[in-house]
């Protein structure tokens, strides 16, 4: 769930827009470079964008008694690195702002910052960290997607609390309020997103081994063997 049209004061709207713009421009550049260097990955890029499209259209009920939707940005961030998701996420947000009156043009900058920038980077960071400590691929993918989803809505809560601090309890009071609306609602949805991302990654491992190896998600058997050897050496 994004911040609705007109619900951020103009100064905030502009500030988030300015903060997001360089990420989107940089993302567009790296997306174009990726496509030029590896035209064969265009299809998988499209599929990652499509995953975001599907997931952010699914409004699901949550334990708080309200509805929200996942973001689907974790998958693309893990596959193609976060800058690319800044673009794909922005496209999704634009579609929703223009056709569905969901989110908005004045809040686009803020929504891009949460869903297309912080979410993918946070998810990717968790994924890489877990992989470094030899957590199995699917475990790392689940955690990465979970964090990408949940962090998006934590940022949304912070953005609203900054714009509308509670007259009595200030920024923190408002953060609690918006957090309970967005972040708590999002927890089971983030679990769902993690599970769906694992599902798609499993299908990709079955169908697109070569592509995943080129993207560094799967290690080649030779490198894997080396890793196993060094791991053995360490245990010895």
């Amino acid at each position, binding site marked *: 769930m994004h911040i609705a049209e007109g*619900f951020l004061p103009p100064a905030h709207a502009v500030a988030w827009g300015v903060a997001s713009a360089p990420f989107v421009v940089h993302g567009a550049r790296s997306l174009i470079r990726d496509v030029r260097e590896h035209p064969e990955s265009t299809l998988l890029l499209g*599929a990652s964008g*499509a995953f975001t499209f*599907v997931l952010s259209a699914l409004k699901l009920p949550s334990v708080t008694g309200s509805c929200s939707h996942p973001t689907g940005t974790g998958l693309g961030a893990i596959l193609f690195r976060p800058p690319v998701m800044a673009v794909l996420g922005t496209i999704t947000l634009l579609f929703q702002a223009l056709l569905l009156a969901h989110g908005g043009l004045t809040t686009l900058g803020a929504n891009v910052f949460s869903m297309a920038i912080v979410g993918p980077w946070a998810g990717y960071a968790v994924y890489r960290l877990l992989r470094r400590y030899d957590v199995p691929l699917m475990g790392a993918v689940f955690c990465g997607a979970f964090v990408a989803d949940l962090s998006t809505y934590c940022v949304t809560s912070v953005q*609203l609390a900054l714009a509308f601090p509670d007259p009595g309890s200030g920024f923190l009071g408002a953060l609690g*309020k918006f957090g309970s609306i967005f972040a708590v609602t999002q927890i089971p949805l983030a679990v769902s997103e993690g599970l769906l991302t694992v599902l798609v990654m*499993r299908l990709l491992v*079955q169908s697109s081994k070569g592509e995943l190896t080129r993207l560094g998600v799967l290690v080649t058997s030779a490198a894997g063997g080396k890793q196993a050897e060094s791991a053995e050496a360490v245990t010895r």
Partner: protein
Amino acid sequence: MSRNAKINTLLLLLVAALAVIPLALGLGDHKEEPFAGADGEAETAITEIDPDYEPWFSPLYEPPSGEIESALFALQAALGAGVLAYYFGLRRGRRQGEARARGRAVTQDADAEDADAEARTGADGGRD
């Protein structure tokens, strides 16, 4: 069902369960409007904090009814699902095609080897 398919089905069932449980347990019953959107609740919270706040911009286009809105959301999901299905279908077809081509190449190689072997024995036989 293969082990892979079982795990995939289990993942889908878990997601379905996560969506159904809040509904089945009636976790929205305490609300005036159960299972409304979190964005709408945030708008309410904003007007609670700052009753004077007026949204200063309205959407350029707003779906005229809930039905049209859900149709557009369904369209969004369908577009995404379509592209995903195309991707996985194409991959599967390609893999099957490659496997078939490999199968054919192997039999051809085998034939060629047979022919080579025959030619060699023939040549050897000639030398003897």
